[in-house]
C-alpha cells in the first residue's frame, strides 16, 4: 500500500493546530501564489483535479464552484459543512483539531475562487471542545492578518443529524429548524438568506491547498480515474486499531483494514462491514474481501462509499440488533417534515424491534421491504432513501438471520 498524506500531512506533528507550528510546516504557502491566478483559473484547476465532495455524496467539487456567480449584486458566501454526524464518521474532527490552518487556507482559496468575503463553518453541537481548537486557530489567523479581508465565523449546531444535509444546514445557519429545502429545478448555487452560497465539506476544502500547491495532476496521481485523490478513511467497531488514516481511492478494503486497523479485534472472523458511515448499507465478509474503496466500486454493489467511515463487525454480531440500532438512530433523527420519512422511520424501527423481541412473523419482513420501498425516492432529501437502502442491504444479505429471529 502506498502511503499518502495530502490532508493528514501535519496530523502527526505536535501542536500542529498552532499557527507557528503550522507555518513551520508549510501552512499558507499557497496564498502567495493565489493572487497570480484568476478566480476562474482556480475553479478550472479544481475541475481538472477531479476533486469530489468528501461529505458523502462525492459530487464533483469544481462543477459546484462553477455554479457560483462571478458577478453578483448580492454577496456570495462559503459554508463549510462540519456537521459530521454520520455514525462511523469522525474524520473532519481530525482536521479541525490537528490541522485547522489547512482548513483556513482552503477556505481562503475557495473564497477567492468564488468571490466570497465571508465563510461560515457549521460545526455539530457535540464538537464543542473541537470547535474551541478551530476557534483558536481562527483567532490566531486574524491576529496574523491572514484573515480579515475574508471573515471566518464558526457556527455551532445543536444536535440534529439532518443539518448535515446542505439545505437543512443552511436553514439551520439562518436560525431556523433544520428542514431540508425543496430542490431547485435547474443547477444553481445554494442560497443563504437569498445570497448565492457554496457549501462544501471540511475535508473537501482541506484538500484544496494541496491541489493549489502541486497542481491538478499531482492530485490525480493518486486514486482512480473516476475517484481521484485520497480520502480520510476511518474505521471503527471490531478492529484492533480503530481510527482515521488517509489512503488513496481504490485501495482494497481488507488491505486497509489489515494494514492500518491491525486486523480484527481478538482475532475474530469478519462478518460484515458498513463501508462508509451508517447510511451506506452493509456488505458481507466475502464482499469485503474483493472490494476496492472508491465510489464506483461500491455503487456497483448497490452500496455507497459515503464518507469512508467503515464500521467493522465480527462473527458474534447479531445483524438484527445492528439494523435495530441503526433504525433507532434514523427514527430519532428524522426531521419530521415529509410523511414517508417521519412515519416510515418509526414504523420500520418498531417492526425490527418486534422481530428482535421474537414477536415477528415472516410477513413483517416483507412489510419492512414494502415500507422501505415507499420511503425510497418520495421525499425532499435523501434521508429516507438512505434508510430504505440500509434496510434493503441488510435484508438482501442477512435475511436468514432475520428469519431465524422470528
Amino acid at each position, binding site marked *: 500500500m502506498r502511503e499518502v498524506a495530502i490532508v493528514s500531512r501535519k496530523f502527526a506533528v505536535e501542536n500542529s493546530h498552532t499557527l507557528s507550528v503550522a507555518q513551520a510546516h508549510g501552512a499558507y504557502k499557497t496564498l502567495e501564489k493565489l493572487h497570480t491566478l484568476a478566480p476562474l483559473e482556480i475553479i478550472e484547476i479544481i475541475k481538472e483535479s477531479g476533486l469530489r465532495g468528501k461529505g458523502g455524496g462525492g459530487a464533483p467539487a469544481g462543477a459546484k464552484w462553477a455554479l457560483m456567480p462571478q458577478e453578483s449584486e448580492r454577496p456570495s458566501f462559503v459554508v463549510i459543512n462540519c456537521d459530521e454526524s454520520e455514525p462511523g464518521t469522525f474524520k473532519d474532527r481530525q482536521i479541525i483539531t490537528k490541522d485547522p490552518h489547512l482548513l483556513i487556507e482552503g477556505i481562503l482559496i475557495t473564497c477567492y475562487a468564488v468571490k466570497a468575503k465571508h465563510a461560515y463553518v457549521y460545526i455539530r453541537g457535540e464538537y464543542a471542545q473541537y470547535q474551541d481548537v478551530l476557534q483558536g486557530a481562527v483567532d490566531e489567523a486574524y491576529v496574523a492578518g491572514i484573515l480579515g479581508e475574508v471573515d471566518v465565523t464558526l457556527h455551532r449546531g445543536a444536535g*440534529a443529524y439532518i443539518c448535515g444535509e446542505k439545505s437543512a444546514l443552511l436553514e439551520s445557519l439562518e436560525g431556523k*429548524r433544520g428542514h431540508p429545502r*425543496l430542490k431547485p*429545478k435547474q443547477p444553481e448555487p445554494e442560497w443563504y438568506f437569498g445570497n448565492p452560497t457554496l457549501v462544501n465539506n471540511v475535508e473537501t476544502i482541506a484538500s484544496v491547498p494541496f491541489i493549489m500547491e502541486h497542481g491538478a495532476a499531482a492530485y490525480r496521481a493518486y486514486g482512480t480515474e473516476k475517484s481521484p485523490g485520497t480520502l480520510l478513511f476511518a474505521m471503527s467497531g471490531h478492529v484492533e486499531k480503530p481510527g482515521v488514516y488517509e489512503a488513496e481511492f481504490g485501495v482494497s478494503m481488507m488491505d486497509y483494514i489489515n494494514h492500518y486497523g491491525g486486523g480484527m479485534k481478538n482475532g475474530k472472523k469478519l462478518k460484515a462491514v458498513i463501508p462508509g458511515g451508517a447510511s451506506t448499507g452493509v456488505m458481507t465478509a466475502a464482499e469485503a474481501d474483493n472490494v476496492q474503496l472508491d465510489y464506483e466500486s461500491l455503487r456497483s454493489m448497490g452500496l455507497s462509499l459515503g464518507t469512508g467511515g467503515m464500521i467493522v463487525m465480527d462473527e458474534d454480531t447479531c445483524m438484527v440488533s445492528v439494523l435495530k440500532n441503526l433504525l433507532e438512530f434514523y*427514527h*430519532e*433523527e*428524522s*426531521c*419530521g*417534515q*415529509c*410523511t*414517508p420519512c*417521519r*412515519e*416510515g*422511520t*418509526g*414504523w420500520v424501527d*418498531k*417492526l425490527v424491534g*418486534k422481530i428482535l423481541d421474537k414477536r415477528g412473523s415472516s410477513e*413483517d419482513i416483507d*412489510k419492512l421491504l*414494502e*415500507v422501505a*420501498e*415507499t420511503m425510497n*425516492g*418520495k*421525499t*425532499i432529501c435523501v434521508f429516507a432513501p438512505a434508510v430504505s437502502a440500509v434496510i434493503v442491504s441488510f435484508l438482501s444479505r442477512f435475511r436468514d438471520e432475520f428469519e431465524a429471529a422470528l
Partner: protein
Amino acid sequence: MSEMIEIIVDDKTYRAEEGSLLIDLLIREEIKVPYFCYHESLGADGNCRMCMVEIAGQKRPQIACDTLVKSGMEVNSKSTKIEKVHTDILELELINHPVDCPTCDQAGECSLQDLYMDYGLHDAKVTIVDKVKHDKKVDLGSNVMLDQERCVLCARCTRFTDKITHTHELGIIGRGDEAKVSTMPGRKLDNPYAMNVVDLCPVGALTSKDFRFHQRVWFLQSAESICHGCAKGCNIYIDHNKMKYQDDVIYRFRPRRNDAVNGFYICDEGRLSYKELETNRLESMLYDGVVVDEHEAIAQYKSLLTQYQGRVSVVIDANLYSEEIEAIVAYAERIGAKVFAPLECYNDPSFADDMLKSAQRAANYGAIVKMGLETNMPSDAGLIINFNHPTHFNAEAEIHFSTHKQESNALLLPMAAFSENSGSLINEVGLEQWCEKAVEKNSPAPTVLSWLEKVEG
C-alpha cells in the same frame, strides 16, 4: 403574464400558464390528486408527499405542488404505479393516527377519510400497537380545539399564522414522529382570524369549539350567502339544518372562496355572527308592550299613518337587501314619506383592519350610497317607520319592523332576517353580490316585501 402553453395530463391536452404550478392545473381541471399540505392561499410546502404524479422523462414520481408547468410536459396522474404511491403514503399518514372518527367532528369533511375511500380501502397492515401519543384535547384559545394525534403535520395552520395573519402563534415543535402542532406553553391562539385554521385543517386536528359536537356535517345544508358583519361583503356558506320535530337552525358560517373579495377567509366575528340570527328574535307583533294579532297590528299601522299624514319618515337599515330598499323607497313615495338611511351608527373604525374587516359595519352600505339616499338623521318626525335600523329615534310615534326584540312601546312588527330571505347586496367597493335564502323557519316572520303588501292591501 407568462405565455400560455399546452401540456398533456392523462392523455388529454390542457392549456396553462408556463411556470405555474402543476397542482393548480389539476385542481382547476378537477383531475383527482390527493394532497394535504398544499393550499392555494398558502402555496406549496411539499411536506405531505401525497400529490405525486408521473412525469414523462422523470425517473421518480414528482410532487405536483412543486412542479412547474412546461410546454409539452406529459403527466400521468392515475397509473397503477402512481395509485400505489398514493396508497402507500396515505397508509403512512394513518399509522400513528388514532382512527377515532366516531368522536371526531371532522368526520364527513375529512381529507383522510375521503382519500381513504379513494386510495385506501384495505385492511390495516400496521401491527404495531404503540402508536405515538400526544394530547388529544388542547384548547388553543379563540374557539379552536387541537387534537395533536389526529394531525398530519401539513403545517397549513402554522403557515396561516405565519404568512396570513403574521401573528405566529402556532408552530410545529419537536421533530420526527414526535413533532406536533402547538402554541408556546401558556400562550394562546389569539387573532381575529384564528378560526380559519379550522377550515384550513384537512383533518380533525383543529376543530371549532363553537361548532363541534353540535351537529354532524352530513346533516347540514349549505346556502351561499354574504356575511352581514361589515361592508366588505365576505362570501360565506350558511350551514343549517332542520332536525325532525325541530326548527331550522343555523349551525355555522363558513367562508366561501371568492378571490375578488375575501379569498378563502372570513374574520371570527363575522363567522360567529350567525348566533345573533338565532337569539333574542322578535316573534310576535307587539303594540305598547302587548301582543296583538295581525289584524289589530295592521289596523293600528293604518291609523298611525293616517294620524301623522304628511309628517311620516321612513328609516332604512343598511343591512337590508337592495330589492327591499327599492321597494321601501317606492312605498315611501306612495305614502308621501321622507326616506332616511342614516349611516353614522355603522361607522366603527375600531373594527377595521387591513385584511377583511371594514369600518362600515353594514352589509348593503354600497347600495345606500349608490341610490343616493338621505343619510342624515330624520328631523321633525311625527311618525317614524323604521325598517330594522339599529338607532333609537325620538319621534312622536314609531312603527318598527324589527328582526330582534327591543324595549319599546312602539308598534313592533317581526320581520325575516337575511338568512330567511334572498336578495342582493352591494359592498363598500360597489360589487353586487347575491344571497340565497338559507333558513325556512317553522313559523317564518314576514319579509319586508310581504309586510309592504300586507299594509297596503
